[in-house]
């Protein structure tokens, strides 16, 4: 007998709201979470729009002010979403023993600001700063000493930038001592973590997992993505499925879901949002950062969707809703659209398709988890939020894109796609819960 896995809690920190109760109406009403970047200023940077988290107060999630010094925003968002997910699930205290409580999180590499890195290096050499100041610069004559306390970096600064720290903090706050996995594949890793937690429960490693992804806008990743030419320079968020090679809009946030072995969830009387029935993470090495010549080929994406359906023992005809990745492409073409047409064939025009990217921006490791959470809510509420600001391109004709108003529809099975720009694609299948 295959062990079944259900979703029993959702915790969301996002540009369109900081709780499931706030996010779901935002999605249904197409509330735009993007806007001019406010958390840092880079006048010389081309990209100026992002989906930022608003009104976030770490104290709302029992984060101790003293610990805040050790936490960058990514960690704070992760802790907050884990806290919300646990609260939402109604799991009390030690319902699961610590060693049976697993955690899988998608993370995005080292998270430091250029400024802190610079200061920390100088500070540790004990040298005063020596910069090649151009003649006539107004700061040329001002000495800067690294022993200036205002310039010093917190002694435990390194611990706030390591990729795995979100997991460590959540483990401490929630007393989780089970399997503890940090996945790092940039944009696919949030969805991958949910899929891997699902597999781990199915396998019998643990009965209970928190899984998702977290990402906060930070100067280093902003610079890198800009350098890659991946970010849109437009004011305003990019339309979904846009093929005009403009690049995408960044977003931030954290989404964590509670996954439990089905019988145990039933036994404790937990509210079940949906069952997770399929997962596939497929690597399409031809589409690595769209640098290769094979980049118009949709076969990697379609293979990914097909594998997730086969994992769920479903056929394309069983799918009632597709939460598309809908990312804006940097290289023209629309591989996702071709992939959907290929997998779902004649039926493709009948299946409602939507995406949340235009409202939130691309939340990198959190985006796959956000897609998944939105899909779970659709399956639970039998309601599909519209894809606002969807491109009007020719290729979309014949597909059933839900573009204006939310659609009420019985959903038995839904697919959530997250396609990574490094070529790591992930599809998750969520099904209506039945005993």
């Amino acid at each position, binding site marked *: 007998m295959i062990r079944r896995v259900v979703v029993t809690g959702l915790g969301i920190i996002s540009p369109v709201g900081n709780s499931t109760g706030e996010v779901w109406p935002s999605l249904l009403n197409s509330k735009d979470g993007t806007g001019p970047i406010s958390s*840092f200023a*880079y006048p*010389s940077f081309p990209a100026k729009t992002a989906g930022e988290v608003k009104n976030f107060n770490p104290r709302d999630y029992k984060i101790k002010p003293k610990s805040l010094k050790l936490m960058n925003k990514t960690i704070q968002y992760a802790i907050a979403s884990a806290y919300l997910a646990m609260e939402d699930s109604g799991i009390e*205290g030690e319902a*699961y023993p610590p*060693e049976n409580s697993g955690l899988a999180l998608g993370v*995005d*590499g*080292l998270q430091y600001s*250029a*400024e802190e*890195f*610079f200061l*920390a290096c100088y500070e*540790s*050499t004990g040298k005063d*700063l020596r*910069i*090649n100041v151009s003649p006539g*610069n107004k*700061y040329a004559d001002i000495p*800067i000493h690294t022993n200036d306390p*205002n*310039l*010093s970096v917190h*002694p*435990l*600064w*390194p*611990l706030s930038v390591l*990729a*795995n*720290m979100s*997991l*460590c903090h959540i*483990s*401490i706050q929630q*007393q*989780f001592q089970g*399997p*503890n*996995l*940090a996945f*790092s*594949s*940039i944009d696919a890793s949030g969805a991958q973590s949910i899929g*891997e937690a699902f*597999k781990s429960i199915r*396998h*019998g*490693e643990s009965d209970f997992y928190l899984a998702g992804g977290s990402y906060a806008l930070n*100067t*280093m990743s902003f610079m*890198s993505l*800009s*350098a890659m030419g991946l970010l849109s320079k437009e004011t305003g968020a990019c339309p979904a499925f846009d093929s005009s090679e403009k690049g995408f809009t960044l977003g931030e946030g954290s989404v964590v879901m509670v996954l439990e072995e089905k*019988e145990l969830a039933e036994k404790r009387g937990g509210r079940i949002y949906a069952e997770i029935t399929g997962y596939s*993470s497929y690597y399409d090495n031809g589409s690595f950062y769209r640098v290769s010549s094979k980049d118009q080929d949709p076969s990697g994406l379609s293979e990914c969707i097909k594998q997730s359906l086969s994992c769920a023992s479903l056929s394309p005809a069983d799918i009632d809703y597709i939460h598309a990745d809908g990312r804006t492409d940097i290289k023209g073409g629309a591989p996702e659209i071709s992939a959907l047409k290929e997998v779902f064939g004649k039926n493709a025009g009948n299946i409602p398709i939507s995406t949340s990217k235009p409202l939130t921006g691309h939340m990198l490791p959190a985006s796959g988890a956000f897609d998944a959470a939105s899909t779970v809510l659709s399956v639970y509420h039998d309601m599909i939020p519209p894809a606002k600001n969807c491109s009007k391109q020719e290729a979309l004709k014949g597909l059933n894109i839900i573009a204006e108003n939310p659609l009420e529809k019985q959903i038995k099975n839904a697919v959530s796609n997250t396609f990574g720009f*490094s070529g*790591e694609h992930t599809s998750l299948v969520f099904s209506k819960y039945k005993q």
Partner: protein
Amino acid sequence: MTAHYADKNRYKAKKEKRRVVITGVGAVTPLGNDIESSWQNLINGKSGIAPITLFDASNYPVNIAAEVKNFHLDTAVPEEFKPFLGRSTSFCIKAAEEAVKNAGLTLDLIDTSDIGISIGSDEESANFSLFEKMFENADILELLMARKSANGNSHSFPHLDTSKHLGKIWPFRRSANIAASMLSILQNIQGPIRTTSSACASSAQAIGKAVRMIQDNDAEVMLTGGCDSMIGEFSLTGFTKIRALSKNNDDPEGASRPFDMKRDGFVLGEGSGILILEELSHAQKRCAKILGEITGYGSSSNAYKLTATPENGHGPDIAMKAAIDDADCDIDEVDYINAHGTSTYLNDKSETAAIKNVFHDRAYQIPVTSNKSMMGHLVASAAAIELILSTLSLNSDLIPPTINYENPDPECDLDYVPNESRNKRVETILSNSFAFGGQNASILVKKFQ
């Protein structure tokens, strides 16, 4: 008291488990750029630690490390991928080539969609000289002034001009999953890939994931392991700041002294270790030589403190027990432990306690060694290389020593195989890896029968 909903029978949910064997290994380490030379130096107790040459570290409080020496990557890499190849990824490609060759795998003859890749690695941190260039026009001064006037609270960059340095390359960071991607592209492997980033436990988790992927029918063959190259300004600064590094600059070879009373921190290393894992029948069908069988894997979290490991060893012991349970093995069967053994005061004490929690009195009869005494701490690739070296012990019945063990610490009182390698029949080994912040993973390997 809340009821526990734990399903005690969850391990039984596993049906007939597919067996996972090791059929090839490859490594680039501070002791050598292949398996043979690394192993020879290891069993002879040679240290790979010396003053840093990769950049001018003379002004840093710590200026020793275990560098990979005379490294050159011969692989032909297409021009468009070259910007993605950092030092760590290059190690990984070299180690993978050796592993594939060692396994006798002819990739053209196998459906490469059955081959997966699972790598533990870190993002390659920024090169400091690039930063300095970026700030050449004195914008850094404006930035620092802004920070000063805001009493250290400023987070804004007034005029950071990156335009000059922004090309189609990625100058500041190479994300962690580049290594796995590059292996897939360069070896033309079409199967699933995974990247884990849990600091010092990364590659143990990657290998664990690889084992599960074979057991769960997601792949027949896995290239798995880790790579890392943290010897740079960033890590040297960071780890010095948290006082994790040994400051024994005057005696590089004696700096890493796991379990010794005078240990004062770890030494940064770099390198890569790659293993070829195969489903048993797949390996047997092609008459591959089998180096060992991975029978158990366990992962856990300390949920204790970010800055310290629990003195009572509770956390790491959960991972060890989980690996032993997963292998359906008895604690009496384990006859060698390849310890995490970083040479920090806290880790070695906590690990010793954890081993005793799991093995009780038997702990004193099991040889426990730390390869880090010679290779330093290879961070994300540490677990992979240590597992490879343990596998070699399994095949040669020879246990490498823990060098620099001179002054016994009453709190670390196990048999650490001091200074001289030892001949001993080894059937089952346990390899431990524990990360900063408290993530742990243990892997159990058995002689194949």
